[in-house]
């Protein structure tokens, strides 16, 4: 469905030193610099797949999404979505996709969202009955029935995001590019949004490419992740495999009935956190069972859980490691590209 081969995108950026002298000098002579936002990126996404697209700020994620949505022309490389080349912006391609960007909007600012829905219905040529049914279903699910008659400018960020999603899905696109879709939403609505995206994906077989700085979104929705940093691909594969390779340890959380010596905890593994009632110990995955047996035998434990390290820690470890070795082509070898859902 989505085929990206050797995609590169560079920007020519005007650079100027601070100060009035530099500002005046730039009137006559400007210094430009080429910034490589994306470099030699390749990946493929099949119909119906849900893929997380991760990377630190400035990695090139949004640039890649914009190229895929046809907003930007690639500097080099090939990109196809379905049978279309995105930057030609064939109307059939534009009906196939949707791009939801958390920080930007398509809702008409001075009018209620219902007016935007009417406009989108006409522009996308959606049959009225289908459009009405889609709006009704989505507004019920997202609990925005009474909001769509208020001018957009009077809605909160979270309310606007929900209304944006309805506008973006009115034409039932088969490819969803979601750039931080849960930004600004409360915790319960984030969960509802994830459930909704999963349901939409399963019901319509839509391919989903999602970026988010909320790792809960990625864990809940994306069996497979594509990770980029400084415009280059550093991982493409199963999410759990990525966690295993970067942080091959487990977090054992123990709740204690009474305080214990710190040395007793340190004996089990690396202490992540500890207080009188609870401790979190990081242990190598292969030793987790033995450590748990030892802890149960020697410590006053009332409850115990074993978890993967949080994905936030994994990503931080991944990018910090790359930062400590500038120029190194550190690359987490690509694992199986198919999701084990």
């Amino acid at each position, binding site marked *: 469905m989505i085929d990206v081969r050797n995609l590169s995108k560079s*920007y020519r950026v005007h650079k100027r030193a601070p100060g009035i002298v530099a500002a005046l000098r730039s009137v006559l002579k400007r210094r430009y610099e080429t910034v490589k936002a994306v470099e030699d990126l390749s990946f493929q996404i099949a119909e119906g797949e849900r893929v997380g697209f991760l990377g630190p700020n400035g990695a090139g994620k*949004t640039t890649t999404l*914009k190229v895929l*949505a*046809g*907003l*930007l*022309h690639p500097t080099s490389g090939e990109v196809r979505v379905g049978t279309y080349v995105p*930057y030609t*912006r064939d*109307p*059939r391609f*534009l*009906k196939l*996709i*949707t*791009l939801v*960007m*958390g*920080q*930007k*909007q*398509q809702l*008409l600012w*001075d*009018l209620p969202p219902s*007016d935007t829905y*009417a*406009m*989108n*219905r*006409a*522009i*996308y*040529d959606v049959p009225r009955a289908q459009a009405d049914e889609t709006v009704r279903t989505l507004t019920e699910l997202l609990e925005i029935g009474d909001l769509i008659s208020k*001018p957009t400018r009077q809605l909160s960020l979270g309310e606007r995001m929900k209304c944006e999603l309805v506008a973006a899905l009115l034409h039932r696109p088969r490819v969803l590019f979601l*750039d931080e879709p849960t930004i600004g939403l409360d915790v319960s609505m984030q969960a509802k949004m994830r459930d909704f995206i999963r349901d939409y994906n399963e019901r319509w077989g839509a391919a989903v490419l999602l970026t988010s700085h909320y790792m809960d979104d990625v864990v809940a929705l994306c069996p497979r992740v594509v990770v980029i940093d400084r415009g280059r691909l550093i991982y493409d594969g199963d999410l759990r495999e990525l966690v295993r390779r970067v942080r091959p340890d487990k977090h054992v959380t123990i709740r204690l009935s009474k305080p214990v010596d710190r040395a007793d905890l340190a004996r089990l593994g690396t202490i992540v956190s500890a207080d009188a009632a609870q401790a979190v110990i990081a242990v190598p995955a292969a030793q987790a069972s033995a450590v748990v047996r030892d802890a149960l035998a020697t410590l006053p434990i009332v409850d115990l859980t074993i978890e993967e390290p949080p994905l936030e820690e994994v990503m931080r470890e991944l990018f910090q490691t790359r930062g400590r070795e500038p120029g190194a082509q550190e690359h987490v070898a690509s694992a199986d590209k198919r999701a084990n859902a």
Partner: protein
Amino acid sequence: MATDLARAVKAFPTLMRVGVAEVVAYRAEFLVWILTTNMPLVMLALWHAVAAEGPVGRFDQAQFTAYFVGVLVVRLATGNWMAWQMSMEIRDGTLSAKLLRPIHPIYSYAADHLSAVPMRIAAASPIVVGLIATSWARLLRHDPRLGLIFAASLAGAWLLMFFSMVLLGALAFYVDSAMGVFELWMGVYGIFSGYLIPLEVLPGWVAKPASVLPFRFLLAYPVETLVGLLSPGQALRQLGVQWLYVAVIGVLALRVWRAGVRRYAAFGG
């Protein structure tokens, strides 16, 4: 492009309805904005005073009144803010929302501006009716064929202004601020379109180039047709020149737009 046009035509009624709703969303701002289109009334007062001493060429007081009523009507019908709107959307990235829709952004802009025309004319109609009452004889005495040619020239003026604004707005793809170029264009427009001074009142060395530049066909030509300053033969010949300008500037504007979209950086978000 043909299927694109067919799709746009089908969506146009809805786009126009939404456009009208946007125009009247802020009632006070809408009225204030209408009232700022008052330069023709200022120039009318000025030239009316000048003509009190005696006619200026073919222009006596009644003729000046008829002329600037025509300027007001044509300006309200054809004026648009597209260059400013496009420049802003290109700079802040909000053009992306239009580019993601399966309809050319030009059609969206056209619907936005067409939808404002009836409201603008309706809001200004009391002034227009009052002024017409003072010069109705001058407005109604001429050949009725000129009425038909005026209608065609008004459509041509709207399209010529529209494509001119597309061209100016699309400069924002290339330069950091296209608004400087637009301000310069407005200055030239003020003189060479007949907005401030009827072109035949200008000195010969200015009037001659003014008679062939495209600015004339944005305003002075339809106004002169309306108030009977042209014969039907003259008006018809100049209609051909106007629509030739529409075609040339239209093609140029679309080419500049198309090349500009390739450079669009979609900043923001």
